[in-house]
């Protein structure tokens, strides 16, 4: 009896694995990494958008279009503010949760889309 061994574990498809297409000439489905890039690029191309960044739950930036020092500053401050805003909303009504935070200042508008694990921060200049 030949021991076939355990069947191969199902491959978890990751974007990095699909570096090359198996069939020449066929266009691969965009990997996850590219999707992420595309989404961020689309947001960046809106009128007036100065920059955007993705920040993890601890306030450490993951992806950004601005320079490092600005990014770190925005990430740290907005992360704290989002936590505070979320706790405020939940204190008032524990069934409620924060979905979006928009801060309008004289010069720009900062939009923060919070999630359990990440934060998406976009800075836009709304006026001409």
């Amino acid at each position, binding site marked *: 009896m030949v021991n076939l061994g355990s069947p191969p574990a199902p491959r978890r498809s*990751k*974007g*990095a694995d699909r570096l090359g297409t198996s069939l020449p000439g066929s266009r691969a489905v965009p*990997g*996850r*990494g590219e*999707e*992420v*890039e595309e*989404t*961020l690029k*689309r*947001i960046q191309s*809106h*009128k*007036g*958008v100065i920059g955007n960044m*993705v920040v*993890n739950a*601890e306030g*450490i*930036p*993951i*992806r950004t279009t601005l320079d*490092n020092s600005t990014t*770190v500053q925005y*990430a*740290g401050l907005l992360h704290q503010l989002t936590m505070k805003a979320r706790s405020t909303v939940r204190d008032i009504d524990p069934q409620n949760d924060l*979905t*979006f935070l*928009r801060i*309008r200042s004289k010069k720009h*508008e900062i*939009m923060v*889309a919070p*999630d359990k*694990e*990440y934060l*998406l921060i*976009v800075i*836009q200049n*709304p*006026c*001409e």
Partner: protein
Amino acid sequence: RSHPEIYPLVLTVKTQEIFHCRAEDDVTDEQPYKLINKETFFEDFKNRGAISDFYPVKKIIQEYPGDELLLVYDKDFKYGLNFYLIGTEEGKENYLNPPEVPEEQEEQKEHISEEVYVYKPLVSKPWVSLGSEKEIEEESVKESTKQIKYMISRKRSKFGAPIKFSDQNASNVKDAYIECTSYPDKNFTLKQLEKDVGMQVVPQIKDTSTQTKWTYPKNATTQYYPREFSEEEKEAFKQSKPLADFLDNMSVSVEIALQQNEITNTFIDDWKCLAEEEGTFGDKTDTYLKEYQSFTDLHSPTEKMITCVSWHPTIFGLIAVSVAERLSFEERVQFSGKLLLQPSLILFWSFSDPIHPQLMLESPDDIFCFQFCPSDPNIIAGGCINGQVILWDITAHADRIENIKSGGSRSKKATLKPMFILEPESNKEAMYIRHCAVSSIENGHKKVITDIHWLSDTFEVNRMGSVFENRNGICCQLITCSADCTICFWDIRPQKISTPQPTEKKKEESIEIPFDVPSTFLHLDLSWKPLSKVRLSKGETSLDHCPTKVSLNEEHLLYKTQDKALAQSKAAKAGEMNPYQNLEGGIGDHLKPIDDFCTKFFVGTEEGELIYTDWKMERDPETGRLMTKKPVSLYTVHDGAVHTVQRSPFYNDIILTVGGWNVAIWKENVTIGPLLQSCCAPKRYTSGHWSLTRPGVFYIGREDGFVDIWDLLEKTHEPALSQNICITVITYIKPWTLSSKQQFIAIADYYGTLHILEIPWTLSHPSTNEISSVNHYFEREVKHLEYVEQRKSIREQEKKEMELEKEKKKVKTYQKSKEQIEAEMKIDYDSYLELEKTVLMNLGLDKVIEKMGVMTV
């Protein structure tokens, strides 16, 4: 009382009830007495104590020998009260069994007493105690205790002897004092068994406190750096599914929010935006320039015209004017001898004195353009008609012009007297100031200098035209353009002298310099050479462009403010005085070249062209000489010489050019053409200037003395306003802002008069968003030009296509017709054959037909 044993008593109803001697009930007339047992009395005493009615006779009752006492109801109040008690047995017996004799005696006594009153002397009877002595006894005070008697004896000798007192501490000797110490007496300790206290329910609170140990203040610092992810981690995140999902979910709402902002700005206060700025100063309907003052030099013997006007950068109300002879070239040659004797001047006029100029700067020949140095208003550079560059330094006279006060008395005197009476000595105030330095005649320009500018103090240029940073912090370079088709760069700092030759030359030519001329630019005098020359050649032909005006890019560099401050402080430290006094320190330092500095600039020429060229020199590969680059672009839009090339004070890349009969507005780097080109005006335009405060307004002077005020937001095909100022050609216009409420415009004319007019509120104050509106207008124009270009190319294409189509059509018809012709021919031939057949048949020539038929086959 005749009967001492009778004790009258008042008995209350209660007592009567207790003793069963109620009046009229128990005791009646028949039996008005009652025998009451002693015990009853004692019980009553026990029960009622002192309030018993029998209390006064308590003793009698107690001492009564018998057991029963007699209580009699005294109805008639014989003895004063309603009852009486008999206190003795005898009395009782007497009452119960009253003897007859006393009754008779009483009757008799009554009788006798009526008849005769016999005096009977009082016989003392033995005192019968009625109990009063008992009262007295009770009330009297007697000594209860026995009195103690003390007898103290002493030896007689000791009496009166001297006594010696001494102190003694009471606590030392035993029993020397008696103390009443306090002790807790239980009788006086009150134990509070009940207490009224208020209570309130509060949340649980906890009090804590700490005390910090404070030693001494110490400096503490924290240094930190933010946590960051490495590149690999970021890449890992990029690939993770949660992030992708998160972005997918959130990007929707983010994009909605972004689009909301793009659609409209919800936070605009429309009400506020409707209103214009706060209350205007002055009449809003007033749109005309108001005449304020005019200056004319009354002392000049010949007729002069004003060639250039410049307001003093710092001093209020001071304006400098350069005057030149109003002669044509031939006349100049003719009168050259006379002209040499008269000085050519730059006059300084002050608002406070319209007759006498404050200062007069002398120059060797007529000045056609001059400019104050931006970093030091006491240095003035001017361009001469003979091609020399002149420098003045009026630092010594600075205080004179700074403290000009309106001399009312002076001017009054002056206006009354006619001109010819006034002697030149009377205007003591005006002083002739000789120039400091002139450029070398051989090496400079050969013809009239038409424009002169100081280069910005942020950069420096070297011989090659390369740009370096300027460490001095002051303006030290000039650019001039002249009618000899060259543009020169000059440096006012002393050049490093490599050969001793110039010094000898200097010695030869050392002219006695008057003592009152400052030595700031002594190193330059007569030996000043330009740093570099840019020749505007037209290529192969020998004719070159003749520049009239130059406009440089004034974009300031991203100079770190620290560096600039450092440079200025360095310059100040260098001599602790005016940096212009110590210019030698500047040359030779290794300067940092500035990259990507735009070295291109606009030049307006005499032929009405606008050239966009570069001042950087390049090496000709063939000859190895330094050559100027070819111009980038050239436009001919004006019909006459371009006399104004000016950048807008609001937009760095918008240039106004005025020349001939029209006006053009250009945008740098837009090579298609001008954004705006006006149509030909009825009169020639001779001068122009942008408004300093309104981005869409500019002033154009005409040859008939009118000023055209253009407002781009109002009309772009013609001027918004036209106003007459004087009767002759306007040679120069220069507006100036003195304060937020006052703006003046200086208009110089051909006859030598300088008019100062006040710009009304409407022309000097921009409306809200004017800058952006005008910017929009320019952008629209650029887009329009681009569209036109596009359309041009589209039209070209269309044209080509149309031609192709035509060609195609022609070819097709040709082919078509060929076939048709053949077919038609065939049909014709067939029909002819038929015809032939029938004819021959009709003629009866059948044979011939057969022959024919054979042949045709």
